[in-house]
């Protein structure tokens, strides 16, 4: 039997795709299903002693004030952090894109990217030292200039915004690189033609840069919102380490869903409840990502 060339190609393609697919199923999908299973019973080292509790843990979530606070905070983080990352990231990328000197461009790129490759724990430690209310360098400077000092991480009013600021500072470089790649993919002719037609800077940005950058923008937004290492919906490491002696504090004002889940799991060994929280977080992230993907991802061609 002889297969058509196109069929043979397709078989090969699927054969190669099978490996990552299997990996994905085993490493991503299976644990997700497993955590759903975990969330239906109490946790015990001995599987025979795990008691089936049905949806009890999901019901408990309805009355868990700290969890609600964590959900609210996580939402604020995303609403505050994602636009900040995108707007500042794009602005910086456009400034760098406009730099003619290749050395300067490389240098600035490296400077912006450096925090991204620095471990989040180290970044958090350094910032928590600098932002310390009494003897931290930032307040020392404010104080010596006669300006009012700030509580930063030590007040429930400012802590969440401060954490967001640190995270934006850290992940900005990654967004800048994404945008730079996107900007470099836009053909110069469009801008030249627009300039001849008398379009000003804003029009060029509004009608050329922004629409053609759309695929990158969508990717950026999704990564900034939901990615497991840098997404605001899964924020954890920085929150834990910026206020190490009161993780999620003060007064729970910086607590995130993932940090709360971690506390439930490893401080209380309640893996059933922790798994239930994971399942809900997974669903939320899935819905938001699908939403972003469908509504933002319209292709534009000129």
């Amino acid at each position: 039997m002889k297969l058509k060339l196109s069929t043979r190609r397709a078989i090969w393609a699927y054969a190669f795709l099978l490996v990552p697919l299997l990996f994905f199923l085993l490493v991503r999908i299976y644990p997700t299903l497993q955590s759903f299973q975990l969330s239906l019973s109490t946790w015990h080292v001995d599987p025979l002693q795990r008691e089936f509790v049905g949806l009890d843990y999901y019901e408990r979530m309805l009355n868990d004030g700290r969890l609600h606070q964590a959900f609210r905070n996580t939402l604020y983080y995303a609403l505050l952090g994602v636009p900040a990352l995108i707007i500042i990231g794009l602005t910086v990328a456009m400034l760098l894109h406009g730099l003619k000197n290749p050395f300067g461009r490389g240098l600035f790129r490296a400077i912006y990217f450096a925090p991204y490759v620095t471990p989040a724990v180290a970044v958090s430690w350094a910032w928590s030292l600098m932002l310390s209310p009494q003897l931290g360098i930032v307040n020392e400077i404010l104080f010596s200039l006669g300006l009012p000092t700030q509580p930063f991480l030590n007040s429930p009013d400012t802590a969440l915004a401060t954490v967001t600021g640190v995270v934006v500072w850290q992940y900005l470089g990654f967004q800048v690189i994404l945008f730079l790649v996107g900007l470099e993919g836009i053909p110069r002719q469009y801008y030249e033609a627009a300039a001849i037609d008398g379009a000003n800077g804003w029009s060029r940005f509004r009608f050329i840069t922004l629409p053609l950058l759309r695929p990158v923008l969508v990717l950026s937004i999704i990564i900034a919102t939901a990615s497991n290492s840098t997404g605001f919906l899964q924020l954890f490491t920085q929150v834990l380490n910026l206020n190490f002696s009161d993780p999620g504090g003060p007064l729970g004002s910086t607590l995130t869903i993932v940090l709360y889940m971690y506390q439930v799991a490893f401080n209380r060994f309640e893996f059933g409840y922790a798994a239930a929280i994971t399942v809900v977080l997974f669903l939320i992230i899935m819905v938001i990502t699908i939403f972003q993907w469908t509504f933002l991802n319209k292709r534009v061609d000129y």
Partner: protein
Amino acid sequence: MKKVLLALATAAFVLVGASTAQTTITYWQYDFESKIKTIDRLIEEFEAQNPDIQVEHETFPYEAFPQQVATAVPAGDGPDVVNLFYGWLPAWQQAGYVVPLPEEHFDPATIAEEFIPMVDAAKIGDDYYALPTGVRSLALWYNQDIFNDLGIENPPATWEEFIEVAQEITVKRGEGRYSMIGYGVAPDGQDHHVIREVLFRQFGTSPYSDDNTEVTYDNEAGAEALEFYTDWVTEYEIGTPDFFPGRGNYRDGFLAGRIGMMIDGSFAIAQIRDNAQFEFGIAELPVLEEGGEQSNFGSFWMHGLTPRAAADEARLEASAKFLQFITSEEAMRIWVEEVGELPARASVLDDPELAEDEILAPFLAALPYAHATFFVDEAGQRTVMLDAVNRVLLEGVDPAESLEIAAREEQQMLDAFWQE
């Protein structure tokens, strides 16, 4: 020649190994230099006495330790004997991470008699789940050099004197800003214990009911105690939380000579002794008025047996033997010397040499009146008390109201635990 000897020795070793059944057990604890060294030393002695048992010693960074245990034990690997903070026991026991100590090796009546009363916290129902080598209490640490400079002769004995002394030490440099503070205020350090087990009791309320099922501090005395504590910051201005930057804030600030006094545990002895560039002193915690009630917070790390040890008779036997050894009088004598934690057996505590040790004496004196809070969710209950303080300090909430919220939150935790 050397090679031949080595080969012979190896052969002999292999033969011996094959003829006597060797049991290998594993001990886990978190990274703490003096504890690692001491356990290594104890293992060496134990193996010499029990050639048929081998003990593997593994340690993990403090932050990663519960995670490692959480995942390794259900998978059937990990430790046979595991070190845990006493406040973690209820959660660990409920999830099956530790098993009751076998009665043939650990008779509950004998333990109750030989160990100090605080060790009751290692018991759930009628069973002991673990035993400690050392126990700790709190004391007031002070910078003797600063005291000398200011002409302060004695460490404060009452809280009133404590505030006076602290005010003398404190140096302000603008509204709410300090360059030096009298007391290292740290609600997230040891102070939440001080409020719970020292101030509440001294102001006239016990924090919990005798059976540990109910929160009993939500009353006038409790509110007065919390207000008294928060007044240290707001009214008497003897310090402020997070004064010194960094993770070890109040202790680092004390070491840096920027904090005149702090309340810290005996576990800080090694660090302070090795790093302080000044003379320091240690005193028992102050009381409300002369001759008034003394109180303290006691705590301990302990060693428990896991289901892995219980699954196999030889391992259980070996693990029990090892546990007996590291909680023996002999081990405790080594422990107090090397780690600085006080012996958990009454017989060793009576050693007159201990009472003569200037550094250990105040901690030792506190043991008879120290309470080990029965935590069902140590981290959660800590947050409750920390939040009670922060609501007053950061949001200006009335102490009585703040305490009421705390009592409600903590009661929920207790209820959740006792229901199951």
